[in-house]
């Protein structure tokens, strides 16, 4: 547990001092939102409301891929990753620490992106802010659990920038479809649907447990 908190604190402190990752992710996800405006014929219309949940989540996943990739390449400098592997505790705690830091950094980016998204596409997100935050948190948990595991893998392959999305995207389909469906129902009815949230909960639990157990073999130097 101490290992988790120590790594979470270290990652957030590094991020606070440099603010590299969060700024890059934020600019990138806002750019994606702008690109969507030009990619959709007609800009913000009633049609955009239907596609908005999907667009928002695509922006989130792209930003997350950018941030996750950075999470472990940072540790390659001065061979800090080997030092992390020497932690005198179960390496699963290292995974949870890194994952929690990724989750916090992603949450900041998501909040700002959602606010801008709501403004430019004329969608009222403020009235459903709390349940939406819950759905986003559940989706991000699944994203960051397998994301952190395979960011550690991809960081030590050739073409690591290419490898991470290739490894991650097929595994993110359950997370993405649950999150998009839940967000979509939330936007139209204002209520949380049961089935997509159930899918998110099951996927999160499964990914978290398997990633926790497998991290041992990924960090084993």
């Amino acid at each position, binding site marked *: 547990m101490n290992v988790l908190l120590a790594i979470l604190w270290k990652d957030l402190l590094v991020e606070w001092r440099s603010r590299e990752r969060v700024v890059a992710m934020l600019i990138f996800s806002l750019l994606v939102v702008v690109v969507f405006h030009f990619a959709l014929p007609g800009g913000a219309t009633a049609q955009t409301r239907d596609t908005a949940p999907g667009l928002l989540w695509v922006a989130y996943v792209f930003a997350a891929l950018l941030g996750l990739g950075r999470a472990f390449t940072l540790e390659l400098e001065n061979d800090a990753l080997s030092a992390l592997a020497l932690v005198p505790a179960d390496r699963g705690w290292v995974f949870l620490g890194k994952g929690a830091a990724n989750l916090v950094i992603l949450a900041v980016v998501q909040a700002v992106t959602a606010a801008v998204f709501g403004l430019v596409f004329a969608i009222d997100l403020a009235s459903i802010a709390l349940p939406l935050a819950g759905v986003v948190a559940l989706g991000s948990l699944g994203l960051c659990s*397998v994301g952190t*595991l*395979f960011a550690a*893998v991809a960081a*030590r*392959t*050739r*073409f690591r920038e290419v*490898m991470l999305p*290739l*490894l991650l*995207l*097929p*595994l993110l*389909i*359950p997370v993405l*479809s*649950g999150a998009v*469906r839940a967000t979509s129902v939330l936007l139209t009815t204002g209520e949380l649907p049961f*089935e*997509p949230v159930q*899918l998110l909960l*099951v*996927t999160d639990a*499964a990914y978290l447990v*398997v990633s926790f157990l*497998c991290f041992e*073999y*990924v960090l*084993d130097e």
Partner: protein
Amino acid sequence: MSAPADHTLKPRTLWASGLTLAVLAAAAAALVFTAPIDDTQGVIQKILYVHVPCAFSAYLGFAITAVAGALYLWRNDEIFDRVAAAAAEVGVLFCTLMILSGPIWAKGTWGHWWAWDPRLTVTLLLWFVYLAYLLLRSFTEGSARTARFAAVYGILGLFVVPLNYFAIELFGGAAMHPENLERGSLGAGMRWPFAMAVVAGIAAFVHLLLLRVDLGARRAAAELSAREGEFAD
């Protein structure tokens, strides 16, 4: 300096190749000459005898990859890694054949190449997962590290199947595939040619798998002897 690697095929391997080819030829003959022509779909329905055996072999290959990967992590024995890599490669080959033969059948019967049917979508995602698996293997350096990374990804790749099924069912995709084969989806006279085609498909899978495992072992032996040669120099 150790003996140079042996590149010749053993007589046993040649016999097995001959036997596999004979079974494949018999199945091909059965589906051309004895399998009946479907009343409603016509001759295109005969793609069934290629499409379904490919599907069985592909699923078998991916299941073997995941199980062998888990066994590698547990026992740390290189043979399991060789089996996992071989099964993934052969599985991707059969999966590709299935994904190519399916749309031809669909276009001929339903009039469109592709539908986001649940089984089709899950298979497509599995294909992407194991293609990424093969890329991961080729982009990672060091055999032990490659084996560990690949094993973890192979396990998660199979793990995602029930989750994907659940996710796609939730979206209510219309099913084009029959639920199972026992419920009389095979017409009269199709059972024997179909059984033969499945036996031939599995035989081809097992034979290719064993050849690929043998190739992996030879490669490892060649690398080892090359390294020993470097030390001797």
